[in-house]
């Protein structure tokens, strides 16, 4: 009898232990991007390799996710074990001590293989605080058939003057073909991502080394004047409402001669939904001969909040999702064109990936961006298309509203820049940057 009871108790204990081991569930917060959704469909591979870890997904709109994750991480709520965050948050949250260092990921994960420009944006004081899932820059996507018809050739590294000439030559408003489509919708991640990157190539900057706003300086006036001239003469109607998705739809339906935007768009404009997939060429973002191009740098990355109780499981998942093996898995299941781009040098060294039409230009664009020296003059901040300070989200959107109003024609360029300067001075003074 005693032996039976002991055996039963032992069996219970083993069962309980088994349940405890199999019950390790991690919650991953993510944005609704194609690459992230694709990963959710490929979880069989992870589950087979790590049957002791269950992954629960929370997919949210980017701004909702940012607000929610910020609240959770600041209060150590512990609702998430892995976060999908951008290059903007990583240096700020890393400095705050909100993220775990990923320097101790397994050797086979191969940190040295990460593209230096991408890894640099995710590293604070020698600690890698997020593992890049996919990286992007921006580049020119153009219609080769329209360029040919206009008798022009797009240089691999065009200037803004080349872009203007091409836009003028391709515009055919009677047939609803607009020479150039650019972001105009207000927002720090919308028109300000494009305009801040563009302004770098004109020698403009958000702040000088004493954190004094610079919207009243000539380079910003030149940037905005050129942008408005391009968009007014050669852009689509209602461009002040256009963001990434609206321009994507315009380009895919054959209404844009050129589109300067995220490199990840390359797979969309050459994909099955595009009516012009056979006629798309790629070039570096334009410059003005000042040594900086108008391209940005961004990565959606996986980070682990410092408050997680499941550090080991979270690191196992992050290492799997951002590994070379995962890239190979996507290639095997969905083709090389659908592999998350812009994170690893080995991907671009792969002869099979080199056959993807936009691979080389994506790599060149990423390599030409330098978040630590974003513009012509020295600046006190990090970030190509953003300023990595907590105040930037609000500031960027407020300034974006002024510049979007200038595009909509409800303000002049000078009025918009004056308003941007005034509000930035006020906010930076309140925040203590300006004494």
């Amino acid at each position, binding site marked *: 009898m005693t032996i039976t009871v002991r055996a039963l108790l032992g069996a219970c204990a083993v069962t309980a232990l088994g349940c405890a081991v199999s019950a390790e569930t991690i919650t991953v917060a993510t944005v609704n991007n194609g690459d992230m959704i694709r990963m959710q469909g490929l979880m069989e591979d992870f589950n087979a390799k790590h049957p002791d870890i269950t992954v629960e997904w*929370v*997919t949210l709109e980017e701004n909702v996710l940012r607000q929610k994750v910020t609240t959770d991480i600041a*209060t150590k*709520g512990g609702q998430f074990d892995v976060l999908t965050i951008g290059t903007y948050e990583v240096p700020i949250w890393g400095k705050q001590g909100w993220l775990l260092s990923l320097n101790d990921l397994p050797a086979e994960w191969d940190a040295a293989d990460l593209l230096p420009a991408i890894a640099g944006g995710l590293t604070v004081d020698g600690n890698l605080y997020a593992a890049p899932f996919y990286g992007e820059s921006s580049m020119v996507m153009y219609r080769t058939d329209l360029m040919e018809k206009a008798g022009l050739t797009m240089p691999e590294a065009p200037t803004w003057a080349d872009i203007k000439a091409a836009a003028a030559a391709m515009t055919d408003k009677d047939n609803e073909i607009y020479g150039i489509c650019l972001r105009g919708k207000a927002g720090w991640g919308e028109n300000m991502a494009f305009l801040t990157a563009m302004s770098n190539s004109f020698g403009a900057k958000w702040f000088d080394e004493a954190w004094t706003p610079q919207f009243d300086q000539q380079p910003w006036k030149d940037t905005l004047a050129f942008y408005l001239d391009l968009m007014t003469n050669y852009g689509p109607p209602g461009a002040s409402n256009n963001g990434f998705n609206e321009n994507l*739809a315009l380009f895919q339906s054959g209404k844009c001669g050129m589109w300067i935007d995220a490199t990840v768009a390359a797979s969309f404009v050459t994909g099955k939904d595009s009516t012009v997939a056979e006629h798309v060429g790629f070039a570096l973002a334009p410059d003005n001969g000042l040594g900086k191009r108008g391209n940005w740098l961004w990565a959606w990355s996986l980070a682990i909040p410092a408050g997680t109780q499941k550090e080991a499981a979270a690191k196992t998942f992050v290492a799997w999702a951002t590994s070379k093996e995962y890239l190979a898995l996507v290639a095997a299941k969905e083709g090389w064109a659908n592999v998350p781009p812009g994170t690893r040098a080995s991907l671009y060294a792969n002869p099979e990936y080199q056959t993807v039409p936009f691979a080389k230009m994506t790599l060149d664009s990423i390599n030409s961006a330098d978040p630590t020296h974003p513009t012509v003059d020295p600046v006190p901040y990090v970030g190509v298309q953003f300023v990595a300070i907590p105040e930037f989200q609000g500031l960027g959107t407020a300034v974006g509203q002024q510049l979007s109003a200038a595009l909509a024609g409800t303000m002049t360029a000078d009025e918009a820049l004056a308003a941007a300067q005034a509000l930035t001075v006020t906010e930076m003074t309140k925040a203590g940057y300006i004494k």
Partner: protein
Amino acid sequence: MARKTTQTRKALTTVAAWSIGFLIFFPILWTVLMSFHSEGDAIKGPFAMLASPWTFESYGEVQHRSNYALHFWNSVVISFGSTLAALVIAIPAAWAMAFVPGRRTKDLLMWMLSTKMMPSVGVLIPMYLMFRDFGLLDTRSGLVAVLTLINLPIVVWMLYTYFKEIPGEILEAARMDGASLRSEILHVLTPMAVPGIASTVLLNVILAWNEAFWTLQLTTSDAAPLTQFIASYSSPEGLFYAKLSAASTMAIAPILILGWFSQKQLVRGLTFGAVK
């Protein structure tokens, strides 16, 4: 002549009413129409979209990617649970304010309403910390508690205005017949105020169903209602209008159907008390 003028005016009023109604309903109609088109067609102009082929592919993808049944059940529990809890507190409160008012009753009512004027985000961090410490994050019971408290002022106000319409003498007669306080509220007051209570319930269920700040902030997966289901279909890079529309249609359909079948009760209730 006078009859002709009246008929013309009637016709004009009817046309104006239908036009305003259509204008208000149009966003919902457009959402439904978009949900039956492909992503590429959904972002085209209105005529091009309507002329393009109709498809159920967005509904298929939404069903495949999300656990709709779980989100739906969470919405039901949270909205009906918070409404019932609010009623349990609000009926006695409204009875006291309507039939045994004190000197400060009006001030109290105004103070209750004033709490609705505070921006929710102002108390996000304290609420989040309390939820964390009490283990209520991502739980249905936590959300029921929050939505009960958030909608309580409106429920009390609505019931108060309905109760004020009921003659106090009837309750007095019940008391003279020996009814206890409990019987007076349960067996005399409540049956007479059924239209008012029904419309309060309906309005509160709709408010709780659509609440999108706290339900998004305080849940992740287990207790996430339909608001989170919708929020997961917006994308910064990639077309999403059709899938978002399909998710929105699936989320609002139950409450639209409920509203449609109970519109008589709702209108009757809303025109019964002081809201009229």
